């Protein structure tokens, strides 16, 4: 009994690994990954089949009428066809998918996955390499040595986590008679965060510091640059553009951010799932949270985000933190991370993007 189940399971796993090898159904590939012979497929395109049919007709006519030159023409073109097969293969082999970055987008706007292609060996040139996945497509020549950036744009409509899925990298260079392709399935995901609510109510202040809210947030853009100058530090993604140290940039020392001691430290916001109780719809509640997070980042107010039991920590740091709440000083988490939390809300299986 035990043995048979073992056998069955091993057969299943064999079957699975076979399928995985053929079709890369699971996101197991790690980038950078060179496209090598073990994953290149090559078959004639429709144009190639049409050409083959023409060759067959020529051959039959040559046989029937005993035309030696007909044979010669037919075989010359067959040689061309065969050489094109190798050329197509050579064009494809050695292309390297260097990286594809996780992408972020607001629902309704397209996700943009940045793929970087390089050549494996420095003297090769790969012409007209196409990259396409589900609802996205890009094409470029990949030159030796240099990195070629391809932008895969995928339209979105609803909030969620969209795995990039299996990418097909293909080319039919030089004559379009053969199509060579390879599947690459890397665990890359796109986070589609909820559309921020249009006119959200004021976010509630943190309960631990029950100070009254400052009136309105009209002065938002100026807040971060007001106050006493405290110094500069290297720029981090998410810093306000208003705080960029232009002088340093002009001197060529790189991107820095000016830091200020706030005149009066803004109150820490405590954003949580429960605070959106007023709304019944999950998506509406997430939209409100998204709007609040936006607001907090614009005003550089520290905040905490607590999505309660439904949260799924999605970023790479997620494994380290068992706590679902993010300690939201803006230095600690980026807006991106917070929005990714919202995008992944309620989704248990990230790789398939389903709840």
């Amino acid at each position, binding site marked *: 009994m035990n043995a048979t189940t073992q056998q069955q399971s091993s057969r299943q796993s064999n079957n699975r690994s076979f399928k995985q090898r053929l079709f890369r159904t699971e996101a197991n590939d790690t980038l950078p990954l060179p496209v090598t012979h073990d994953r290149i497929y090559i078959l004639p395109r*429709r*144009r190639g089949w*049409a*050409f083959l*049919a*023409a*060759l067959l*007709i*020529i051959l*039959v*006519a*040559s*046989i*029937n*009428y*005993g*035309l*030696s*030159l*007909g*044979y*010669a*023409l*037919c*075989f*010359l*073109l*067959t*040689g*061309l*066809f*065969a*050489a*094109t097969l*190798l*050329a197509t*293969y*050579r*064009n494809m082999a050695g292309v390297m998918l260097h990286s594809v970055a996780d992408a972020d987008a607001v629902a309704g706007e397209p996700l943009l996955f940045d793929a970087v292609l390089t050549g494996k060996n420095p*003297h*090769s*040139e790969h012409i*007209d390499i196409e990259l396409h996945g589900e609802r996205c497509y890009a*094409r470029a020549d990949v030159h*030796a040595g240099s990195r070629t950036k391809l932008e895969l744009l995928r339209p979105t409509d609803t909030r969620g986590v969209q795995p990039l899925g299996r990418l097909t990298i293909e080319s*039919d*260079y*030089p*004559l*379009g*008679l053969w199509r060579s392709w390879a599947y690459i399935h890397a665990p890359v995901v796109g986070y589609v965060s909820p559309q921020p609510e249009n006119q959200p109510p004021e976010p509630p202040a943190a309960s631990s510091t029950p100070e009254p809210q400052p009136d309105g947030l009209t002065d938002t853009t100026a807040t971060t640059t007001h106050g006493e100058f405290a110094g500069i530090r290297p720029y981090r993604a998410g810093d306000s553009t208003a705080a960029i140290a232009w002088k340093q940039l002009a001197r060529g020392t790189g991107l820095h951010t000016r830091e200020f001691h706030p005149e009066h430290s803004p109150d820490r916001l405590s954003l949580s799932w429960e605070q959106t109780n007023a709304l019944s719809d999950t998506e509406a509640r997430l939209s409100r949270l998204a709007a609040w997070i936006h607001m907090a980042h614009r005003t550089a107010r520290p905040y905490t985000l607590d999505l309660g039991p439904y949260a799924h920590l999605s970023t790479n740091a997620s494994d380290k933190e068992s706590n679902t709440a993010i300690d939201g000083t803006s230095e600690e988490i980026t807006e991106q991370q917070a929005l990714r939390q919202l995008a992944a809300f309620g989704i248990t299986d990230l790789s398939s993007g389903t709840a």
Partner: protein
Amino acid sequence: MALISLSVSPAKGESLSVATVPWLAALVMLAQMPHYLYLPWWVSLAGATLVVLGVARWRHPDMRWLTLLTNGWSLTLAAAIAVVLIKAHYGYFIGRDPCVAFLFLLVSCKFAESRSIKDATLLICLSAFLLSTRYFYSQSLISGIVTVPAVLAIGGAFYVIRQKKPTSSLTEPLAITGKLLLQGLPIAALLFVIFPRLPGPLWSLPHDSAATTGLSDSMTLGSISELSQSGAVAFRVDFDTPVPNAQSLYWRGPVLSQFDGRTWSQNNLQSLSSQQSLNFLPKSDKRYLLNPDASATPPVTQYTVTLEPHQRHWLFALDVPASLPVNDAGTQARLSHDFQLLSATPVSDTLRYQQTSFLQDRYYDTQPPGRVDGQVSGQVSGPVSGKNQRTHQFARQLRQQYPDDTDLANAMLRWFAEEPYFYTLRPTLAGDNPVDEFLFDSLRGFCEHYAAAFTVVMRAAGIPARIVTGYQGGEMNGEYMIVRQSDAHAWAEVWIDNAWRRYDPTAAVAPSRVEAGIGAALPSDEPLPTLARFDTSWLRAAHLRWDSVNYQWQQWVVDFNTGKQQNLWRKLGFPNPSPLHVALVVIGAAALWSLLLLRGQWSWRPLRRRPPEDRLWERWLRHLQLSGLEKLSHEGPQDLGQRAAKAWPVHQNSILSITSALVTLRYSSPIPVARNRLVTTLKRDLNSLPSPKEWRQSTNHRDNNKATLTLSDLNGHYTDRV
């Protein structure tokens, strides 16, 4: 031929870019051009016009009438009209020639109509097919050469229609197609040599056979040499008895006894003899076949002939037929008085019959020639007045010399053998007295010239003679023999001593024609002594060379057949290759080929030429190395030069000059003119260096204390020199 439907809806799929149009137009024109020679003029004209219209539409997309004229509907209509017109012109449609004409027009229509990439793909495939159909008419070397640009255009067209961003580059598609073609050439050659040649047609369209080559009931000088350029099969033979030797393989066909000075044709009494056939089975009535005085029977051979359809009545049998053909299908046949086997109906399908022959070069007849049942045929002997007078005079001289008929005939054969007659496929003949011209002026002819001249001489000498056409020889292909149109032959039959005797003057001129076939008789390098007797201008030499190149082409490419294929296998050590062998060879070769192409140095990037100073620098280093001075890893040209000058003070000047030139070329990027001059000087200096061996001997071993050279010294030297 399938009617390939023209897509009626406009531009399905991806639309075609304008940049591809010149390529497609060039392809269509290259594929169509050879056909202009063979098609009715109006078909060529219509085809060319449609192509021009198609190009015009792309150039002027705003012209409504052009768009209207070249849309799918009007072109479908045009194709339909073409069908009707072609049928009217040829009288039939399902046949080779009308279908080629239609394909020709179809390609034009498709070009005019092409708007999408799909259209273009179909157009390219149709053009490729059209390209192959020209070989129906000519398989000459020129035809082969003319195909090459068209093949390049096929690849180029594929290249440009694939491109997403079309380039206007002309060389890029051509270069890549050329490269691919070269890479594919080994595979092409292998397939050409190894692909089994299936005998005979897989099917035959009803009218095709009318156009096939074969013997006819008349013979103009030149008609058989034309015929012998066709590799088509005339018939195949299975021998029940041992295969006769080559000298007796005379396949008797139409007998021509009427001559008007130019053309030989069948006897006027053809109609008569069709009623007056021999009512006997020759086998049982041996008086025709045996010398009445001899008792021994000649060797008998039995065989089965599989005759390709030729739309004529005659059947072929080895000389001399001893029986009427026995046929399972019950085809009626008879033997005419002049020993032609004639079928009751024209042979329009492959016909298989059993036949018996006596291998004998004569047959006896009780009736003298010229009289068939009392009727006189004036044409069997006697001169034709007014024509070929010199021949007649020559014959009269011979007659005076040789009163005996046999002696005279043999003397004539000797004449052919001893005089510088030349056996060639391309005789130069013109004029009203072709026999005279051949016999005394050109001395170049094919078998029909020799047979005709021989017959005319015999007749002029008063001996009844006639021409027999047929085939001579045949090629054993395993168990059976193939007789091809190229084996077509003509010989003479002369009435001497109550028998029609076979005389083959061709054998006197080119014995190998009879012994080993036409291939052996027409050597590729024609013997110079013969040539020397003629006008030896370079033009003639070039012409002969061209003839021989063509002949080689004919022999090795056009006539590459099962026999040659088997010979090749035999030479490789596989006398009887099984399909497995063939498959293994193909697979092995393909694997090797792929390996070479994938691993080898067939880079896609064009090799960048290295600058000359790099190569010269390496040469300099090699020279010093051989002379015993190794470059140290930290040394540049300057330091190396100083050390070398120290080691060989004798050569200090040249060392200085070389070093300074190398330094200037490498580091100061002079203007091109100065650069070229410098390279030339440097090359000359390097060339004029004594050999490293001498240098080794002249090495300065003393640690000399001469002032070390400085950069300024070198520069000063350089400015002096340049």
